[in-house]
């Protein structure tokens, strides 16, 4: 009998070489005590500049109109604690990313207003419960490129590798669906603002839809319907990202107006220029990082306290409530985003260093990611070119949708240091954020068939 079992066990070990084991149950016990269910440190830091986690922001401010999809600033009475500029940056150097240091050094008038840290992130109980369970059941496959076993929560609350942290980012909870009008613009080195497009966006997260038969297949489905510039109106993109990139790759299609048909668009990945990014943003820069992780070695450096953009309600308000044109006028200062609309807070982040694998090619040779411990969807990154020079500085712009218990971190900002251009992407504007399939201001329901390329073509008007 023993003879029969042994070879079988050996096979299991062999396959475990591909699938990485989850954390032991003992270690997972910290979740819900010392660690939040998704793995953040529940306690504050020593000097109290990071407060303990107390359940996040679940109460709407008085100004909030129920079901409006527009989020007034619940922290509008907060005053900056101090400002970081090129003059005093040395004092804060240990809490600044290389990207922020570069921006401070380059622009003497650049400043970071640092506000009290507000750990506003909150997620529904089901997501928290699933996160705890995931700690002992999620495994990576294909050297971290894919995962299996995870369901409806943070996949690796106690991450041990760079890939695991990156998966926490890719799978960060942002509701089950989000729909909004997305705006993109850039400010060139002459200080001129140019709108690069408005689109109707739909982000769907099957992974967070317990009743979706594809919840174990895809983690994200994106539909982009271009509205502006007018010459591109009617164009559509569909991108589907799988949970297990070892068995299936990203699927992408494009609807071509004029012919009313859909073409496969595999080029919509990696360092292909992002449509509305003025050539300064790659497809995998979307959300600071997205897509398949097969071109880099992702090394977990550890945790660090860093100033990151957080609770940017003022920025959202400028673009959502005042209309895109006015909003862009207000926030789109020359050289950098008007500092009055940025809010910086000290948070603990996971630092991951991605190095281009031998034989692989990408515009960026190295990327350093900083993901918030509370919302792995939010964070920053420094992107180095193939000469090893810092090329771009990326960051998400996040808020908490307090009425829906959803952390929201879709928009992002890219500073290109070689062209002195910055690009703001995916910013909700001209109207509400529709998040979730239930409740007021809910997103539309799409069936699986609605995502089919043929359905996209059939719906095409132009």
């Amino acid at each position, binding site marked *: 009998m023993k003879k029969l079992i042994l070879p079988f066990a050996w096979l299991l070990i062999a396959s475990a070489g591909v699938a990485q084991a989850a954390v032991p149950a003992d270690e997972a016990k910290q979740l819900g005590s010392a660690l939040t269910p998704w793995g953040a440190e529940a306690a504050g830091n020593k000097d109290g500049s990071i407060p303990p986690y107390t359940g996040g922001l679940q109460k709407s401010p008085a100004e909030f109109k129920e079901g409006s999809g527009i989020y007034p600033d619940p922290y509008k009475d907060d005053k900056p604690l101090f400002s970081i500029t090129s003059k005093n940056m040395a004092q804060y150097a240990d809490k600044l990313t290389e990207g922020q240091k570069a921006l401070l050094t380059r622009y003497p008038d650049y400043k970071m207003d640092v506000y009290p840290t507000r750990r506003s992130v909150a997620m529904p109980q089901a997501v928290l419960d699933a996160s705890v369970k995931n700690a002992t059941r999620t495994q990576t496959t294909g050297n971290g490129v894919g995962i299996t076993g995870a369901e409806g929560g943070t996949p690796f609350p106690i991450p041990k590798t760079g890939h695991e942290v990156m998966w926490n980012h890719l799978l960060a909870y942002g509701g089950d669906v989000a729909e909004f009008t997305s705006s993109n613009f850039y400010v060139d080195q002459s200080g001129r603002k140019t709108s690069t497009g408005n689109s109707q966006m739909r982000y769907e997260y099957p992974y967070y839809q317990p009743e979706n038969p594809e919840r174990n297949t895809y983690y994200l489905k994106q539909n982009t319907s271009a509205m502006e510039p*007018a010459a591109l109106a009617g164009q559509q993109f569909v991108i589907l990202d799988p949970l297990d990139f070892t068995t299936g790759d990203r699927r992408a299609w494009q609807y071509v*107006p004029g012919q009313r048909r859909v073409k*496969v668009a595999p080029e919509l990945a990696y360092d292909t220029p992002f449509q509305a990014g003025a050539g300064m943003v790659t497809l995998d820069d979307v959300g600071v990082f997205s897509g398949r992780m097969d071109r880099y070695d992702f090394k977990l450096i550890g945790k660090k306290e860093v100033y990151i953009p957080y609770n940017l309600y003022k920025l959202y308000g400028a673009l959502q409530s005042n209309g895109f044109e006015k909003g862009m006028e207000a926030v789109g200062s020359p050289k950098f985003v008007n500092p009055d609309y940025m809010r910086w807070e000290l948070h603990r982040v996971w630092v991951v260093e991605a190095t281009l694998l031998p034989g692989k090619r990408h515009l960026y040779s190295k990327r350093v990611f900083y993901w918030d411990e509370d919302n792995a969807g939010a964070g920053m990154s420094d992107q180095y070119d193939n000469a090893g020079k810092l090329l771009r500085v990326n960051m998400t712009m996040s808020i908490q949708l307090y009425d829906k218990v959803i952390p929201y971190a879709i928009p992002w900002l890219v500073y290109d240091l070689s062209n002195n251009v910055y690009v703001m992407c995916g910013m909700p504007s001209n109207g509400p954020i529709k998040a979730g399939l239930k409740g007021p201001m809910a997103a539309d329901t799409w069936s699986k068939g609605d995502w089919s390329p043929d359905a996209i073509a059939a719906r095409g008007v132009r």
Partner: protein
Amino acid sequence: MARKTGSAYCGRYVKQTISVLTCCGLPFAASAFQLKLEDPDWTARWDNTLRYNVGVRAQKQDQGLLNNARYDDSDSKFDRGDVVTNRIDVMSEFDFKYKKRYGGRVSAAGWYDDAYRDTDVKSNPAFGNTSTAYPGARYSSYTERWNRGPSGELLDAFVFGRFDVGSVPVDGRLGRHNLYWGESIFSFVHGVSYSQGPVDLRKLGSTPGAEAKELYLPQNQISGEAQLADNFSVGAQYFFEWDPSRLPDGGTYLGAVDFSSLGGNTYVVNPAAAAAIASGAGLPPGSIGPVPFLGVQDRPKNSGDWGVKATWRPEVLDGALGFYYREFTDRFPQYVLGGFQESGLPTDLRLSYLRKTKLAGISLSKEVGGLSVGAEMVYRMDTGLLNGDATLVGDEPRGDTFHALVNVLGLMPGNAVFDSASYVAELTYSRLQKVTSHAENFSGVGYGGCPTNDKWDGCATRDAWGVALAFTPVWYQVFPGIDLKAPLFLQTGLKGNSPVPFGGNQGAGSYSIGLTADVRSKYNVSLQYNGYLLKTKEGVVNGLPAVSSVNGVGNTFDDRGWVSLTLKTTF
């Protein structure tokens, strides 16, 4: 007689496909008209594209063409350095939607070309008044309208809706719209989309920067698509309108054979020439009549064309398979004779559009190694074949043909030379399976319609290959707010001449080299050289040294190279 090969004209469209697919800065505008409506269930938008083109002839007139009375009008209109187009185009589009499920769309185009302000038709003076194809040496009202204007036309005008039939979602459209099935990118002849709608080759060739929305012309029809399963859908269309594809007009810059114009009202042999022939032969005046060109005659009836398709995306294939069947009236013509005069000259020449061509095809769309690959195989039954000069109306050769194409779309990463580049390549193949009627009129090597049996006289070969290549490097933010692109394009027949009209001839094609600036995503400025490839034979025609034979007449001759400057904005 005129054999027409239209595939030379597809360069313009291609560049659009590329920029669309690589999504790097088409000409755009920031402030389109998003109409604000009180009721959030309704959305509407109105966009206008304004385009200005100025073009200058870069090549000198070819004396061999001027010396052939059949080609001299088109070549004489402009000489090197002349402005060949000075044109404003406008396209307006209005869409509305109700609850994202129902809605409608109307679009229209307008134009005026000041280079044709003067509607005189020029000819080689050596021919006196015997060569002019147009009566009175003035453009017909048809040629004037479509080349000069000011004029306009309605494009799309349809309503659409999404309905649930049981649990099956069905999308339907009714009215003037266009559908383009299959995977072909450059070729509108060898794919399943052949003659699925009229293609505006006139605008495509002469108006750089034209939108695909203006070139694939809509027709009144009802169409629908039903999603029967997540990976299986079916679609159908039934037409209530038939219009022919548009071709350049004789006597205009890109016209080839002088008399060829869809509007007719031209002469193959004008009255002066007929009188000269009579007197030369010692016959009494009037014994030989002129030979008019009648253009579109016996216009096919509007309704009756239809097509069905099914798309299946089996998981194992990880791609899409399309299956198609269509029955249609050809939208590309054969040039045929109406009859004969006593003198032996034809009574007239006209365009014939064959009914009841049948087409079955399959297509494949799949990602292969990071590239978007499309392929099609098409079998056409009783399709019109390339016809000989002496074909009488009703005696057009028909046959079965096989067509195939494969295309690849890809993106190159940046390097020391450019920031990124897109490329598209398409290879086409066509083959004669059998001639089903009037083999004597089939202009193929070895058939009666090809007396010289020489493919270089434009006769079809058993099979033919063609290729189209586009490559567009991009440089971002070369100046603040300005991206540059350098679109390169080449399309040519590689080997053999296709058995079907407009299917491509060996050595016949076109190319372009351009430089485009996208200014703040709002204005688009393009400078481009447009060149043509065409094999001709020199000989003696009517006592003059002249181009005597062409492989692909109807292609633009290779002395028409021109430089165009295009300004474009959408608002």
